[in-house]
């Protein structure tokens, strides 16, 4: 279930892997082991998302401006990177094309995961005001309901900058495109998406216990998205160890990028870690599913 049957396709891979995993926990009667349950979760997800899209469509001008705004806001990070490179040809040993490659892979993974699961960060709010109870009585996984809530077309604006940047940066990378490297690029985008998706759900699950944790877990989601746009050579060793072994953000794109860009690992990790991202994604998804189920099982309504 967490293995990625369509590794080449980030969106499809993520939707099946993450929703399937967690959907299994919520769909009752053990029918989850069959392939029908994940399929149903995806169908429900799409249906609910479409409902929200139509609702948002009631304000077409706003949606258009919002999509544009989201696109440009997401693109701001590129402006930041470009400003840096107007001032120096290399930052921490990396060229502009290489940093843009890191930006593209990180931002693509993050925005797809954000579209699919980003609104789960509102769980704490729902617990606080008691509206989570409403979701629990409906015959659909609460995770799917929260994830699709306020699903707006504007968030697709986020995908545009990373796609454009990758189209620009990939041909400009000064590397020998072996079949291995070509294969690793889509694989890292897909596993990065799964890792971010799992982190969204994990951070949401924490809010079952720590209602006020949302502000801090943004450091992992949004902070992680920002961090992985830059080479880890910018940061102190201990910090990099933290984002490799404690919160495995380095596996979103940094470790596989070291292979693609043919760079030594500043932490001196063995060569196989560069291919560990899918496994890390799978393990993290399992942890997220477990955390979500545990959180949901121990949830007590505020009772009001």
């Amino acid at each position, binding site marked *: 279930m967490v293995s990625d049957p369509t590794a080449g396709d980030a969106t499809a891979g993520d939707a099946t892997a993450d929703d399937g995993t967690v959907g299994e926990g919520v769909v009752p009667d053990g029918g989850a082991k069959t392939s029908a349950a994940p399929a149903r979760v995806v169908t429900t997800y799409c249906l609910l998302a479409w409902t929200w899209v139509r609702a948002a469509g009631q*304000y077409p*001008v*706003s*949606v*258009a*401006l*919002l999509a*544009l*705004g*989201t696109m*440009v*806001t997401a693109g*701001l*990070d590129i*402006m*930041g990177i470009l*400003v*840096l490179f*107007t*001032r*120096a*040809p*290399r*930052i*921490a040993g990396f060229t502009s094309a290489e940093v843009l490659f890191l930006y593209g892979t990180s931002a693509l993974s993050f925005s797809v995961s954000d579209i699919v699961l980003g609104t789960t960060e509102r769980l704490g709010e729902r617990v606080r005001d008691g509206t989570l109870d409403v979701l629990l009585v409906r015959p659909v996984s609460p995770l799917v309901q929260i994830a699709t809530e306020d699903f707006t077309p*504007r968030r697709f604006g986020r995908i545009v900058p990373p796609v454009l940047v990758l189209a620009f940066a990939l041909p400009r990378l000064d590397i020998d495109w072996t079949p291995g490297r070509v294969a690793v690029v889509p694989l890292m985008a897909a596993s990065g998406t799964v890792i971010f998706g799992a982190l969204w759900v994990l951070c949401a699950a924490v809010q079952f216990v720590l209602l*006020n*944790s*949302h*502000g*801090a*877990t*943004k*450091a992992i989601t*949004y*902070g992680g998205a*920002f*961090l992985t746009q*830059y080479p880890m050579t*910018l*940061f*102190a060793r201990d*910090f990099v160890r933290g984002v490799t072994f404690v919160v495995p953000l380095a596996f979103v794109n940094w470790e596989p990028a070291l292979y693609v860009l043919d760079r030594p690992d500043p932490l001196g990790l063995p060569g196989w870690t560069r291919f560990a991202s899918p496994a890390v994604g799978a393990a993290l998804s399992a942890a997220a599913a477990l955390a979500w189920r545990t959180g949901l099982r121990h949830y007590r309504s505020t009772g009001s």
Partner: protein
Amino acid sequence: MGVIPWVSWYALRRYSAYPLGSMAEAVTNSFFGVVRAGIVIALWHARPGLGGYDTADAVTYSFLTQSLIGPVQIFGGMELAQRIRSGDVAIDLHRPVNLQAWWLADDVGRAVSTLALRGLPPMLVGGLFFTMRLPGPGEAAAFTVSVALAVLLSFALRYLITLSQFWTHDERGVQAVTLVLSLFLSGMIVPLVAFPEPLGALARALPCSGLIQVPADVFLGRRAGGALLSGLAFQAGWAAALLAAGGLLTRAAERRLEAQGG
């Protein structure tokens, strides 16, 4: 006049009601500070003395901007926006108090509360792990004034954007577009001193630079004497102009109002 200080006071208490939530935000601010510090250290390593900053200045700048995110609410938004959408603003307009003054008072309370709860942690984290440049008493006093003006300026901008909703019915689109400008042109993403010219000069002339770059320069002691006065006057001038525009727009909006939803 009488009620306005109370609006501020209650806003202060309301925004301080969940101190843990605010502290949690400060964790994220501090994390971003660390990442930004790593970036500027590399940049200033490649280009020592860029824009007149040294590495310690640039690192201090990174954490300082994170401390200011809350008070100047760089990501935009106001509670008033919700009230306009829901029609509750009709109640606000019925009060015998000026709408703009009421929400300014509310915003001052919010800013003081977030500065107190979210301002210090990023600076502490920065001081713990990096070499920072700290201001003397004179600079600190000037910085306090500059932050107060930045809050005023931020309110003036956000109020204008929020009021646009009387015409568009949904301010989020306008807000998203202005967010881009305020994030980039305030110096939040990259210090304006590191911008290539003439983009840097343009950004420094626009009101957004009064939100982050000017207070930061005051903190770093890069503005003294005449430069300090001109910096503060720049903030005050833009704030006054935008508040005046907000006043005019308020009057137009009062004539325009149609409460939705009945």
